[in-house]
């Protein structure tokens, strides 16, 4: 036996994470990803997609193998949903729905792989995984995640809530969730991730969804993570002809977070809506990278990301609209608005358009600024304190995104923001 010599720091990090994953149980085959992981560069600020996102410190991350904890408490207790709970990448609670070979399946990926390997196999293959280090890392040692297979024409009557909990301590987790919505089917999914104040681990998770022809998927992502953890999320969607996709992301609380959202419209007449909001304060860091590929004609997309950076926090937004050759009659709108409130806060945004077809209507708008002085003056003249007026304006600013969530989630995110920024 020859001893494996790890020469680079990133190879050592990959080895440490893989080892931790192996201990908790890898679900699926990561061999292909391991191949290209070794060839990919570890992100540095010299790489365009990581220009503002520093991950050098993560190179020293040492995942600890800590004892298993009790399942987390129920979130949104009044919410009538089919619940699947995962703790640090392991399936810990929830009932499995299995209606046979071509029927509805809601459960962990591990069970789906055992029962229907052919249905699950093709889902997790995203080209992105062969081009980005952290995505390849996740794919090379994937953990369990939710698997939702909605058969053709099925209209689910109940939303599905995927709850991923990251317990305290320096743990590593690499959950991989899979969603497939069949022809003409509809599904509503909530992806919820949380962690307690003592968490300081690395959450490097993925979600791959395929939305079939004329299908409709609504996904609400809530990230409510206390502690000092790092979270890198890879969310990939492919859409069929005339399909509808809505993704709303609320970063309610995060110490250091990077979201990569990618949508590929793989059929004509697809419609995508993706909205998001973020509100880092203190020394927090939130980075949203989005990309939509209009690969076929007659597609539409509507993107809206709003956020603010307070204190010494950093907010990053990068949105790319790509209209491929011959993808005519595309209507793509992108809007990004930022409030910069802290003396030492920073906002970096890069709204990109790359267009190779001529009959398109594409636009993006991007603003960075402060409160409207007149609005502030109006509220003050009505007897509000400056803080109360600020808070009201922030709420109004975020409402455009938050109001799109179901009321229960909207209220929760609102309450978290209120607690963090001291709204009354």
């Amino acid at each position, binding site marked *: 036996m020859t001893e494996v010599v790890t020469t680079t720091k990133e190879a050592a990090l990959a080895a440490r994470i893989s080892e931790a994953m192996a201990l908790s149980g890898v679900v699926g085959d990561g061999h292909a990803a391991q191949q290209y992981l070794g060839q990919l560069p570890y992100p540095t600020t010299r790489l365009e997609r990581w220009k503002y996102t520093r991950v050098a410190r993560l190179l020293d991350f040492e995942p600890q193998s800590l004892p298993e904890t009790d399942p987390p408490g129920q979130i949104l207790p009044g919410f009538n949903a089919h619940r699947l709970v995962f703790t640090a990448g392991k399936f810990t609670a929830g009932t499995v729905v299995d209606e046979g070979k071509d029927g509805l399946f809601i459960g962990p990926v591990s069970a789906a792989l055992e029962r229907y390997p052919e249905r699950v196999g093709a889902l997790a293959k995203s080209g992105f995984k062969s081009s980005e280090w952290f995505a390849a890392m996740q794919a090379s040692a994937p953990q369990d995640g939710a698997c939702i297979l909605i058969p053709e024409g099925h209209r689910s009557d109940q939303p599905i809530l995927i709850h991923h909990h990251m317990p305290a301590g320096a743990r590593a987790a690499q959950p991989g969730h899979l969603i497939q919505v069949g022809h003409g089917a509809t599904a509503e999914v909530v992806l919820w991730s949380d962690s307690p104040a003592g968490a300081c681990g690395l959450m490097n998770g993925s979600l791959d969804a395929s939305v079939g022809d004329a299908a409709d998927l609504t996904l609400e992502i809530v990230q409510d993570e206390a502690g000092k953890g790092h979270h890198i999320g890879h969310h990939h969607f492919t859409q069929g002809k005339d399909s509808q996709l809505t993704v709303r992301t609320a970063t309610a609380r995060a110490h250091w977070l990077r979201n990569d959202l990618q949508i590929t419209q793989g059929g004509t007449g697809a419609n995508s809506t993706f909205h998001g909001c973020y509100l880092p304060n203190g020394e927090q860091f939130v980075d949203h990278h989005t990309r939509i590929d209009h690969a076929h004609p007659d597609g539409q997309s509507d993107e809206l990301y709003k956020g603010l950076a307070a204190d010494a926090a950093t907010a990053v937004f990068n949105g790319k609209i790509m209209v491929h050759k011959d993808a005519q009659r595309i209507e793509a709108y992108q809007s990004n608005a930022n409030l910069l409130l802290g003396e030492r*806060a920073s906002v970096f945004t890069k709204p990109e358009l790359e267009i190779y077809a001529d009959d398109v209507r594409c636009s993006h708008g991007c603003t960075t600024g402060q409160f409207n002085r007149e609005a502030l003056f109006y509220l003050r003249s009505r007897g509000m304190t400056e803080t109360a007026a600020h808070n009201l304006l922030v709420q109004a600013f975020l409402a455009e995104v938050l109001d799109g969530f179901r009321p229960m989630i909207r209220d929760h995110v609102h309450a978290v923001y209120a607690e963090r920024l001291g709204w009354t």
Partner: protein
Amino acid sequence: MSAAEDNPLLEEFTRKEYEFGFTTDIASDKIPPGLNEEVIKLISAKKNEPEWMLEWRLDAFKVWQSMKEPEWAHVQYQKPDYQAISYYSAPKSAAPLGSLDEVDPELRATMDKLGISLEEQKRLSGVAVDFVMDSVSVATSFKEKLGELGIIFCSMSEAIQKHPDLVRQHLGTVVPVKDNFFSALNSAVFTDGSFCYIPKGARCPMELSTYFRINEAGTGQFERTLVVAEEGSYVSYLEGCTAPQRDENQLHAAVVELVAKDDAEIKYSTVQNWYPGDAQGKGGVFNFVTKRGICETRAKISWTQVETGSAVTWKYPSCILKGDGSTGEFYSVAVTNNAQQADTGTKMIHLGANTNSTIISKGISAGNSQNSYRGLVQIGPRARNARNFSQCDSLLMTDTSGAHTFPYIEAKNPTAQIEHEATTSRIGEDQIFYCLQRGLTEEQAIGLIVNGYAKEVLNKLPMEFAVEARKLLSISLEGSVG
């Protein structure tokens, strides 16, 4: 159905020959291709430069050797072989000229063809022209008249001889040698360019203009322009460029530095019409240019550019808003056709308080071209109450062309106000329909709409150039929509 089939005018446009593609057959002094320390020493010796200038060049050459050619721009091209270029070419009659009448008649004819008859200019338009052919300045008009005001307007080599202190004080302060690959190359081998100095409080009474032309085959053009506007002064500077039609790619790597001291204003306009290559993308000029200005307190720098030529453009005229209350402006129309590629935009770097910048960029893509806007707006932590407005519009003429926008917005001060908006579309059918039913032909309608589209920028050009720019644009506009 392609646009060209049902529109004869578009066909005419896409076949339109490059108007300035002639070569001038005059004897020239050209050194063999290749780049090494000896060549740099030779250039410096030919120009009879002082020792410090040679040292500066050699240092720059060392820096350049350690640098890599950048690849981040959204353009694809065969990298030039830097050893196959001749770094010095000058029309033979390089003896000092007493008056314009002594200029080589062939050269005079060239200028006439380019529409910059020095005589005419002298009498009618009151524009002082510096004409740079193959990197060497051959004629500068109106020198005495400017001299009365203390304004220095001459070629860079003359400035190095006659005003070494001024050159030494400012050269490389805005665009350092190490700034990028092409600025380092330029610093090592630049052969000429224009130098302009406006003393304190002077208001330059006429437009200063430089006309650049690459004439010789197998040469590159590396000119260096330095404009220094002292406290409270004003100058408007124009620059035009053309090159003959050749099958090979010619390299143009210029550096332009502007220094605007307190309360000074510099207006810098460019009409760039280098040879763009033929319809298949063969030949054409690689235009890799570094242009940057620095603004002291309450100073203003305004860049206006009309970009219609070059096979590949890589150009970001920028403003460093160092002083409080300074202003930067960037107005651009970039037209690409056939196989042209352009990656152009600006950088507005706000360092001082109450700084203000405006960016208006209009891209028009036709044929198989790729047209990108790339811009940076950076608000530093000390730039209180900085304000930026950016607007980047793209107009697509064909379904084989591309229009791209890559804006970078970095804010580090909570008092910053930044707005950016970009749209991409083709000419609205409803707009054309409206014009048609008012009795206009389709070509007139398109001309009207696109002219209106670019008007915001064209209006910023000085009158003399606006005419040329409109003419250039109109060639590209006629019926280029299907």
